[in-house]
């Protein structure tokens, strides 16, 4: 479709009376003659100019038929023309470039058979459609008007068929994967054409076009109402969301507090302990009171006859070989002056969980402080070693107790052993085991004596 701007661009500067034949009715001869060629002057002076130039002599126009090259039917148009100058081309040549034919899909019978067959369309019908499209320059109202092959069809049917054929042919000529951007867009558009949707859209638009004023008003009111409802709904949603966020806050498991399981806490504790230990090791104290220590050690060793290789303060011992006694965090060194050994760091909680001993002390220290690492599990609480020397003597019955006491007295075990050391207890336990064996044997002996008496009576 050509706009005025197009026309002007095509004519360019030679906007000349030579085009007047295209407007034959509206052009009086004089006027046409009066318009000067290549005149850049305003038209209101043309009369004067004409008079000045031509001297009132008229040009002869001829009424002749001219062929229109773009028409295939060779229809002859007759029109008024000025006498032709040699260099001036035929007017139709100038407009030939606007004769752009609509692009039609091209196919032959073979392709049709292979790809384009349709249950509702014969090949003739399809050919007719393509031809109509081509003849009508792709103007669909005209195509619908002109197309009369076979059964009557709507514009949407025609479009669907034509677009389908176009898309197929396009895909055939250019495979989809090698299509350029615009080509693919075109292909998609052609493929996605939906006749039913198009028909309904048109029907709707038509209905819209023929509404009455009351209907329009009603619709406006309804639309306003709908908009209000939508806005309210959105508000409600956002408020609800806000409330939910407030209710759910704080969200556990988020990055805020990472030590909420006991496992994590244990890990943290170990980490802290580790760092602290490393810190402390770097400033291992001199073991202090060296002379006193050595003296003490030598005496002590002589006493208990068991040397302690890692005893701190021994001349040969390297500082690092000292017990991990610096394991306690945060206990100030205040008491160290008065104590020759840093016993307070033997706090067991500070030992690593993996270590076998729950306490970090040298063997000598364990002995000195009377610490025994129990092999078997003991119930926590207080016990007296002397109880182990007295309690076994007491049986459930007084008779048995008396018997035990008799045996013990006979064996020369004192009633009161005043020295409940482990060795003594061990020995005493052995003795008690023997006592019990003896008691059992005596019981058995009594039974057997009884039996013997019965049997001897029987035998007699």
């Amino acid at each position, binding site marked *: 479709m050509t706009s005025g701007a197009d026309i002007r661009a095509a004519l360019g500067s030679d906007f000349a009376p030579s085009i007047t034949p295209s407007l034959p009715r509206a052009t009086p001869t004089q006027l046409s003659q009066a318009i000067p060629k290549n005149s850049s002057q305003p038209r209101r002076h043309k009369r004067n100019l004409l008079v000045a130039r031509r001297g009132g002599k008229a040009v002869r126009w001829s009424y002749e038929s001219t062929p229109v090259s773009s028409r295939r039917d060779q229809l002859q148009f007759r029109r008024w023309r000025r006498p032709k100058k040699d260099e001036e081309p035929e007017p139709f040549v100038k407009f030939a470039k606007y004769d752009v034919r609509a692009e039609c899909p091209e196919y032959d019978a073979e392709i049709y058979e292979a790809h384009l067959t349709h249950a509702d369309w014969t090949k003739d019908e399809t050919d007719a459609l393509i031809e109509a499209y081509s003849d009508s320059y792709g103007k669909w109202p005209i195509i619908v008007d002109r197309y009369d092959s076979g059964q009557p069809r709507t514009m949407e049917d025609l479009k669907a068929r034509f677009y389908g054929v176009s898309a197929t042919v396009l895909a055939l000529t250019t495979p989809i994967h090698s299509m350029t951007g615009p080509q693919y867009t075109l292909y998609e558009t052609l493929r996605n054409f939906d006749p039913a949707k198009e028909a309904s859209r048109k029907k709707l638009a038509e209905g819209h076009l023929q509404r009455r004023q009351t209907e329009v008003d009603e619709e406006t009111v309804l639309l306003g109402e709908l908009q209000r409802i939508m806005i309210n709904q959105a508000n409600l949603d956002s408020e609800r969301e806000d409330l939910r966020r407030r209710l759910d806050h704080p969200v556990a498991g988020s990055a805020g507090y990472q030590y909420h399981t006991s496992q994590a806490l244990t890990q943290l504790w170990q980490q802290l302990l580790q760092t602290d230990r490393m810190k402390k090791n770097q400033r291992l104290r001199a073991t202090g009171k060296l002379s006193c220590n050595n003296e003490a050690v030598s005496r002590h060793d002589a006493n208990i006859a068991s040397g302690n290789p890692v005893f701190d303060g021994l001349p040969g011992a390297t500082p690092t070989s000292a017990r991990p006694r610096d394991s306690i965090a945060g206990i100030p060194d205040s008491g160290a*002056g008065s104590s020759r050994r840093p*016993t307070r760091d033997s706090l067991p909680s500070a030992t690593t969980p993996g270590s076998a001993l729950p306490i970090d002390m040298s063997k000598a220290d364990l002995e*000195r402080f009377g610490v*025994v*690492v129990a092999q078997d599990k003991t119930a926590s609480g207080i016990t007296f070693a002397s109880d182990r020397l007295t309690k076994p003597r007491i049986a459930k019955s007084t008779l048995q107790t008396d018997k035990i006491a008799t045996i013990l007295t006979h*064996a020369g075990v004192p009633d009161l*052993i005043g020295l409940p050391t482990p060795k*003594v207890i061990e020995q005493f336990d052995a003795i008690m085991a023997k006592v019990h064996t003896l008691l059992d044997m005596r019981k058995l*002996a009594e039974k057997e004596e009884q039996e013997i008496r019965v049997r001897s009576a029987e*035998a007699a």
Partner: protein
Amino acid sequence: MPAAPSKRVKGTQIRRHFLIGNTAHVLPHPGFPDPPPDGHTKGWTVYVRPLPNGPDITTWLKKVQFKLHHTYADASRTIEAPGPFEVSETGYGEFGVEIRLYFAQESGEKAVYREHYLVLAPYGPDDQRARQERENKIVAERLETIEFNEPTQEFFKTLTSEDQFNWLKVKKGRGKGKKPDYIFEGAVEPTAQLPEKAMDPGQAGAGGAWSVQYERQVLAQLQQSGATLDQMIEEEKRGMEERRRRLEELGVAIGAK
């Protein structure tokens, strides 16, 4: 208020030896009222003491209650740390003294009863009796070993503290702003273990008699007793064998009948 439950040190036991006993003298004797109350012939002292070279007993023992015979005025005598945990009285008869031991608060342990039967008359073998009469001093004491099984951590700390031995040491070099140094000047390094040798055999009642030497004596005695028992068991076995034989004979006799 009981101490807050503290974590216990698993798998450990701390042993402390101490003495429970009494000394007795025939009155009149210095240190006891003279003339003695009507009918009272003996003066005695019942006590709970640490070993002479051991750690401080007040580390774990905070209070001792002696329950005397109910005929005594104010029969329940309570001694608090630092002690000494002892009660001196005069009297004429022996009886069992109930001794209640209260422990340090951090131990989280309840008080425990022990009993000591007063010994006022000479006892033991003849030479011992003779000596007791000669010296007018009877010592009847026994070594107790208290075992703190799985002590609480705090208690463990105090029980393994070097300060426990300070009571045996001499303070030295109390400088300005400095803590006093404690120097031990005894011959034997203090320890919670029994001393190897009896420290001062002449001083009975001060706990000097308790030693590894004495332990050996006791052990030897027990071994002897054990041997005696073995002998008795052997005898029983022989008796059993004999009875079995007799039973068989009887069985044959019954069968023949």
